[in-house]
Every structure is written in structure tokens, then in C-alpha cells.
């Protein structure tokens, strides 16, 4: 799980496995979470940007348990991504994820038949696993909505009501597309994400996409009118890409899907108080959002009501 919260500096060098220790230019550390570090690097050619998710081995765990968990998790994440990427050829597919380039579940393992010399730098690498993925250009929904908030704060009082209304509509369209993407993940993908937050939902600008089908991507013409504003409202154009499948599982259970939506709802509410009121109507209930995205969505939304009542937290005894 990649957390965007900054954490205190570790004393030691951050974990970077072989062969990325040899990469030129060296990978750039983007963020550091509890379980993994995210680097920006490249794959095969310097022009192909790639995301490296490195999972260092946890020294507090028993080595056998650690090796088992690290391997299980990196493989589970890769399998989910590969499964979802395979949907890319489907013209109606609305769930986009980073493609998997390569992975290693034991960076420090010995390879039979290699001499010490041939093992080279691999010999000294720290234990852990890594997953190399396609780099997703664009911004996270979290950043986009934050930008929208600051635009609204700066110009909301001076902009014409029509202009504000148009921008509110643009946000609503974005929210509905998020609902559709999650719906496609659940139905076509058969996957629950496990950690849906607005930081894990990206908007990739349409220019970078070769597979844009244009069905759900609205264009925002209002930008032209906003030229004389102190800040321009953000551009929501592009395709929705889901990232960070570190906690994802393959499941088609209504309960798991409802909990997935509940996690997103809670995260959304605490991150974007201004848009919280629109979440239910746009992301979940709209026919262009989750409800309309697949046939079983009604049942899942019904279950979500139960999940909400139950809450995540039960009363404990003792």
C-alpha cells in the first residue's frame, strides 16, 4: 500500500533492488508507504517511463513467513493487473490499469548454476520483491479535486453563476465516470480493489491514450472562458486509470464489492468535504455512474446500505 502521507526519514538508504541499482539515470523515489516504495524509472528505453514498486523484506518477521508473504503479495498484485489488462482489447472496457512489465519475488535469491562472480551485484542486494509497471501520466483525482477547490475559493465569488454551474457539472461528470470505472472493475474484472481512495484513481490526459473510446470522456469547453481568472479550473479530460492494487483480491461477492464502495465513500468524505454531498448521487446512484454500469449493481448498492449501518467498527467486549 502506498501512502501519500510523508513519514519521518529512515536512517538507512531506501530499499532499491538489483538491477535497478545499475539503472542510469537512477530511479527517482516518488513516495514511501508502509509496505512499498514507489520509484519512477524507465523500461528498456529511456523514453518508456515505468513505475517500480519495491517491497523491502520486513526484518521483524520470521524469514520464512516474510518470504511467503512478500511473494504472495507481489504475485497477487501482478495477477490482478494482468487479468485487468487483458480486458484492454474489449472495446466496451472502461477499467484501465497499468500494464505489468516485469517482476521479481525474491530479489536476493540464488540462481542455480551461477557462480559468485556471475551473480554480480545481485549478491549484495537487500531482500525483497519488486514489480515494474507502466507509468501512468496525469494527476490523481485527489489532486484534481483539490485544484478545483482552490479555483473555487479563488474565483467562486467573482465567476458568473453559469461558469460556476458549468464547473460543478464538470466535477459531477468526473464523479460519474469514477463510478463507471469501479463498476467495470467489479463486473468485467471480477476484482475488488481493497483500497479505493481518490489518490488511487488517476485521470490520464486523452492525448497520451491510444485506446480512448470517447464514450465516457466529456470535454470541457469552459476552460477557454476562464482565461482571465486568477486560476484556471482543472481539466478533467482523459481516461480514468485505477492504480495501487496492493490490497486487491479477485472476488465477485456482493459483500466484498459493497465494502469496496464503502471504503471509497469513507475516504472520499474525509478527503473532499466539499464534494462529499455529491458522492452518493453521482458516483453510486447515477445511471451513468456505478448503478448503471452493470446488471448486478443494484444488489451491491442495496448491500452497501447494510454495510453502512453496520459500520466498519463493531462494539467490542472485554
Amino acid at each position: 500500500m502506498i501512502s501519500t502521507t510523508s513519514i519521518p526519514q529512515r536512517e538507512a538508504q531506501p530499499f532499491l533492488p538489483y538491477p535497478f541499482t545499475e539503472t542510469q539515470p537512477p530511479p527517482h523515489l516518488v513516495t514511501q508507504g508502509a509496505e512499498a516504495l514507489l520509484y519512477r524509472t524507465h523500461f528498456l528505453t529511456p523514453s518508456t517511463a515505468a513505475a517500480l514498486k519495491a517491497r523491502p523484506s520486513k526484518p521483524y518477521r520470521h524469514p520464512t513467513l516474510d518470504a511467503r508473504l512478500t511473494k504472495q503479495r507481489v504475485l497477487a498484485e501482478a495477477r490482478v493487473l494482468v487479468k485487468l489488462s487483458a480486458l484492454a482489447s474489449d472495446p466496451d472496457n472502461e477499467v484501465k490499469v497499468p500494464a505489468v512489465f516485469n517482476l521479481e519475488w525474491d530479489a536476493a535469491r540464488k540462481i542455480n548454476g551461477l557462480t559468485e562472480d556471475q551473480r554480480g551485484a545481485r549478491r549484495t542486494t537487500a531482500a525483497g520483491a519488486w514489480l515494474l509497471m507502466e507509468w501512468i501520466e496525469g494527476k490523481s483525482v485527489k489532486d484534481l479535486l483539490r485544484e478545483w477547490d482552490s479555483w473555487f475559493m479563488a474565483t467562486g465569488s467573482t465567476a458568473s453563476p453559469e461558469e460556476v454551474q458549468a464547473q460543478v457539472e464538470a466535477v459531477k461528470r468526473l464523479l460519474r465516470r469514477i463510478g463507471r470505472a469501479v463498476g467495470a472493475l467489479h463486473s468485467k474484472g471480477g476484482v475488488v480493489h481493497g483500497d479505493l481512495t481518490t489518490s488511487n484513481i488517476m485521470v490520464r490526459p486523452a492525448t497520451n491514450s491510444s485506446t480512448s473510446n470517447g464514450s465516457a470522456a466529456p470535454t470541457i469547453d469552459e476552460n477557454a472562458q476562464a482565461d482571465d481568472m486568477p486560476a484556471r479550473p482543472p481539466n478533467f479530460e482523459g481516461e480514468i486509470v485505477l492504480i495501487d492494487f496492493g490490497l486487491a483480491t479477485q472476488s465477485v461477492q456482493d459483500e466484498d464489492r459493497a465494502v469496496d464502495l464503502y471504503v471509497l465513500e469513507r475516504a472520499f468524505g474525509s478527503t473532499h468535504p466539499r464534494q462529499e454531498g455529491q458522492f452518493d448521487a453521482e458516483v453510486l446512484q447515477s445511471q451513468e455512474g456505478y448503478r448503471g454500469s452493470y446488471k448486478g449493481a443494484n444488489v451491491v448498492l442495496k448491500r452497501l446500505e447494510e454495510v453502512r449501518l453496520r459500520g466498519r467498527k463493531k462494539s467490542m467486549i472485554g
Partner: protein
Amino acid sequence: MIAIGLEGSANKLGVGVILQPAKGGPAQILSNIRHTYVSPPGEGFLPKDTAKHHRAYVSTLVKRALAEAGVRLEDIDCICYTKGPGMGAPLQSVAVAARTLSLLWNKPLVGVNHCVGHIEMGREITGATNPVVLYVSGGNTQVIAYSSQRYRIFGEALDIAVGNCLDRFARTLNISNDPAPGYNIEQLAKRGKVLLDLPYAVKGMDCSFSGILARVDELAAQMRAGTLKDPVTGDAVTPEDLCFSLQETVYAMLVEITERAMAHVGSSQVLIVGGVGCNERLQEMMGIMAKDRGGSVYATDERFCIDNGIMIAHAGLLAYRTGFATALEESTCTQRFRTDDVHIAWRED
């Protein structure tokens, strides 16, 4: 200011007297005594028998605590008792004792949340200012962090508590409950070598222990039947190995969810409280994790980790000093009382 605290939410009956200097500064522990109801090996403690134990011992313990503290009745400002969470019958018997003392001595009552008692005592003893708290005991497994006058629960066990898992496995193996089943498991685990595969159930910042218990119980049955072999060497697996495997697995889960909460709130301090917090292997693992994050782990010994009266007195007195008191008519107790229900009026940050 001086408070007396009565705790009896589970099988420990504790009475403590604490003094908090009016001008601030560290609290002084005037007395802190405990009497534990120990059930026979292979059995847990039943609410009825535990309540009977508490009723039988409470007046003796109060007298001893007062004598040991050397305070006069008129110096005591308030009587603090555990309002919950806990087992119903034991909680009630202690609440009755607290009410009786309140009427007898004409002192105000303060109902205290057991979990908040653990957290406040841990902070007082270790000096940790704003840590992520791992509260692990026979009844509770919670990862807690403070934010705007509440102790918020970031993650918790979705079914049984980690201590309950250990206690019940001790029953399976027929290990003694004296002094505590978890302590005896820890001693056995020190001699264990083989790590057997057990389920590992972490979901985000929550975790689950019932499946692990079911699996390790199964393995124990195979061990007794003589069919369980170490997959690598083929040697017979011992009870020590099972305890070792269980500890390594459940503590790795606890450290993992704590680390996640630390990354989430951006804290590098971690405080372990609750009975399972005495476990040295858990403290060691947590220490390695915290060091890796450039932080440190704070833990206390059995006097404060295991349920005690002093923590109730301490947390109760903190609340009392902000003007909080529980009227006699409202001096009830409850089995369900969440940590985040309590308004932490005494913290300003």
C-alpha cells in the same frame, strides 16, 4: 489530588491509589495491587465465577491499597471504577463496590473507559507524547491514534481478540493459566524452532484471528495423533513449535497493521498497552519495525500492561480534574463501550 481506582472488567481485580500533583509533573503511584482469578488448565474464566471472586476480594484489596498508600480517607478526591468494556457480571460486582464506597465515604464517582485507562497509563509511565497505540489484550485488539480530543480506532480485530486467540490455544494444549496463559505460551515459544504455515489474515488496518485459532487447533490435534511432521526435516512437531508458529504469525500481523497506521498518520512513536503488550517477542518485533521507521517503541511491564486499578484511578482523575463526575444514578457499567466514544477533555493538542 488523589484518586482510588477499582478495576474488574475481566479476571483481574485491581485497586490502585494515585496522586497527581496539582501543579503538574509526573503522577505518583501510592499503591497498585491486584488479585487474579485463575481458572484450572483447559478452562477459561466464567463470568459468574469471576464475579464471585471479585466480590469476595474487593473489600480486602481496598483496605490493603489504602494502608499501603498511607493516605487518609479525607485526602481522597474521587473514586474511579471501570464502566466498561468488559464482562458484565465482573463489571457489575466492581461497580457495586464503587457505589458503596462512594456512599460510605461521601466521595464523587468517576466512570472510566477501560481502554482509555490503558492508553493514559501507558503515556504517563513511558512519557510517549503522541504515539500510535497498539492495545492488545484478551478482549481487545485495536490500533489507535489521537486526533482532536478523541482516541480514534484505525484498525482492529474483526472477530476474536489476539489475547483470546492465545488464551484459547493454551486451553487446547492444556497449559496452566497461572500466572497467565499467554505468559506460558511465550515461555514455550522460546524453545520452538519450526515455523508451520498458518493463515495470515490482515485486511488493510484490520485483522482476524479466528481462522488462525481454528487451524492451529487442528494442527494440535494432528500433533497429538502423532501425524504432524516438520515439512523440512521430518521430525515430530512439538507444542513448543506450535506456540512459536502461532506467536510469530499473530505478532507479525499486529506489527504490520501498526506500521500501516503509523505511515497513515505520519507518526514514528508506538506505544503498546494491554496484557499481550507484556510479551517480549512482540515488543522486540515492534522495536525492529519502529527503528526502521526512525522511531521508537514504548512499552510497560506487567504492573501496568496487565489490567490494574492504578490506570483507572489515573484516567479517572484526569477526567475529574476537567470537571467530569458520574452521578450515582448514572454509575452503571456496560459490556460495550468504544474507545472513540470518550471525549478526551484533558488533552489540548
